[in-house]
């Protein structure tokens, strides 16, 4: 727990969400696509937890399922009781694409509306919009970036926003150097009868992906790229209180 506290201090937040782990939900399932139509991006994603027999609405994940592959669902039941997709909602939620093939399954709307698309909170402004300069004083700080299970891909309208904020701060704070550390959750865990563990290599792949992005956004910056294949959870707010999400990260540490 000491590590958690230290990290929380560095992240500059004191969220305790990760502590209230009681109602976390985690399962593996083949995705079901419900073809609702409230305009663009309004289809619903559903998943059945084999252990509990519950069907959940998992549509709110920043990275959405592929109907040809199984998904790892991680989430927390929403406090909102509305069921626009015909099942109780997990929100926050993550759906990671696994390599296990699934039979495509699409069901009709059956009277459900789905959700009209709203721009997520984590979206970046066009380049033409000047970013406000973050206030100092500037001191050592860590910016985490989060990933899909066993993947190194920068998530649209999540990681781009996290990196954009980090880079805006780094441009203003002008640290001496950055340490970019990729983490992986390599400890095997059994979920819905399936043993899951991230590949140790994904820690390095993540670090390199973010380092390459930083080289492009901050040309000339001095950077150490490292990997740490045994990640512990943190309680950073941008992991939305999902401990597994918090493990699958890269940390950009700015040193002065």
């Amino acid at each position, binding site marked *: 727990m000491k590590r958690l506290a230290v990290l929380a201090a560095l992240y500059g937040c004191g969220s305790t969400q990760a502590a209230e782990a009681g109602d976390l939900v985690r399962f593996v399932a083949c995705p079901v696509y419900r073809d609702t139509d409230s305009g*663009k991006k*309004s289809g619903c994603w559903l998943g059945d937890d084999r252990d509990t027999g519950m069907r959940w609405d998992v549509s709110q994940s920043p990275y959405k399922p*592929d109907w040809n592959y199984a998904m790892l669902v991680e989430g927390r039941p929403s406090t909102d009781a509305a069921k626009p997709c015909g099942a109780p909602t997990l929100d926050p939620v993550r759906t990671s694409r696994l390599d296990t093939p699934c039979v495509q399954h699409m069901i009709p709307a059956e009277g459900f509306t789905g959700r009209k698309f709203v721009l997520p909170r984590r979206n*970046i402004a066009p380049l033409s919009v000047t970013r406000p300069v973050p206030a100092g004083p500037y001191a050592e700080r860590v910016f985490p970036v989060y990933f899909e299970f066993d993947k190194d*891909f920068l998530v649209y309208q999540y990681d781009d926003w996290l990196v954009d904020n980090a880079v805006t701060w780094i441009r203003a704070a002008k640290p001496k150097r950055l340490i970019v550390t990729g983490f992986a959750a390599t400890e095997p865990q059994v979920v819905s009868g399936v043993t899951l563990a991230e590949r140790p290599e994904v820690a390095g792949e993540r670090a390199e992906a973010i380092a390459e992005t930083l080289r492009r956004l901050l040309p000339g910056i001095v950077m150490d790229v490292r990997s740490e294949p045994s990640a512990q959870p943190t309680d950073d707010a941008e992991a939305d209180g999902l401990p597994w999400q918090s493990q699958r990260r890269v940390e950009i540490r700015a040193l002065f």
Partner: protein
Amino acid sequence: MQLLPQRSLPLALGALVLALSVGARGGDTPDRWWAPGEGRVLPAVLDYDNANGTLRTLVVGGPLKTKGHPFFEPLGPNGRACVTCHQPADAMSLSVASAQRQWERTGGKDPLFAAIDGSNCPTLPQQKRESHSLLLERGLFRIERPWPVRSFNGKPVTPDFTIEVVRDPNGCNSGVYGPAAGRISVYRRPRPVANMKYLLAVGFPYDPKQGYALPLDPDDGKPQSGNLMADNRAGNLRLQMEDAGSSHLGMLKRLTPAQRKRLQDFELRVFTAMQVSKAGGAVDSGGAKAGPARLRDSAPGALGSIGEPVWSEFKGWESIPPEEAARLTPEQLAFRQSVARGAKVFRDKTFLITDTAGINSRIGFGNPVRNSCVFCHNMSQMGNDVAPGQVDLGTTTLPFADPWADLPLFKVTCTGRPHPHYGRVIYTYDPGFALTSGKCADVGKITLQSMRGLSARAPYFSNGLAKDLRGVVDYYERRYSIGYTEQEKQDLVNLMSVL
């Protein structure tokens, strides 16, 4: 990337149009074909008719004397100039109709048909029409790409796939050609050299399809738009013109800095779009605001969904006031209403987009995702993609591509992770962006083109699979089972005919 200097003056349009329109009239007006080295003057406003109306090309700061200008002079030994394949009458691309016309007029002797890439393969008997069938029937040029992929933006690449030739109908993927010889031949349409500021515009700092910040321009260190060339092998205009000089023009020497500067300056000054619709009249009349002048005068790179909606140029034709309607023939009125509906269909009629890398993977939209044409064609006024537009629509890759016996077929085997939709083995006529990135996940991705001047430059898609605008709509209908009504299809065709 430097854009145009601010001195680009708005033109006194009315006066110039009368004096300078060429091509449409007979008599002693110059031919619509611009031959290399003719030394004509390129007017500031140039109109050419096509089946759907009049295309207008504007040259900012024009007229331009083409004598000695590197875009118009043959720079290499094969007698071609850039203009050979980027013709003003064809929206600065080349229509198959123009290729056929040049074949008839010159008995196949025009430098356009040069063996190197204006024939199906240099090894074929060049005097025979059938040796040029891909150019004459589908407007395709041979493009040679190195194998293994050598570098992307200066970085060496180790491809995560192997490539074998399954079928080689033209002989240009075997013997001294082909992957085994380090030279892959694919066949592609010329892309329009106009409205360039939009293709070079950078909207956001990331390439969400690749999952990185945008790559930086090796010349000026600024982020690149990623919207040039079917396979994005050239990230800026300099790299592109050097590629064109040594391949299409057969130049043995490199372009000089002065030539490069004049080429780039010209490329940034040319704007082209339909000005008059045969069926609907001027596209900037009756409340509509389309046409090339607006294109020239607008700021590039805006995302339609947060700014000016794509094709809202035609909003004024959605509800035409009675006094305006009274001035139109019933046919004109109906056509204008159809175009306005087409713009709405383009933006609002949603369907399920499936198994399309770049959209359904790896970016997290999900597979499938419900959206419309404007999801990918999202830049205001141009209909290209604000983000780098490498998307696998299936136009070049089985099973989605149409069967073409005259195109080479490659078997790609992914050696790392399998392709997210096709699996480990992929059959393709053109691996597209994968020939630049070296990634099997990019096989079949083709950079979205702009949608301007379509009426002047059939056929469509990088391999010319759609012979007309209806063919474009039919392809999408086949690909995504959209369920457009006959009326919606016609509305889309009418819309695209006036862009």
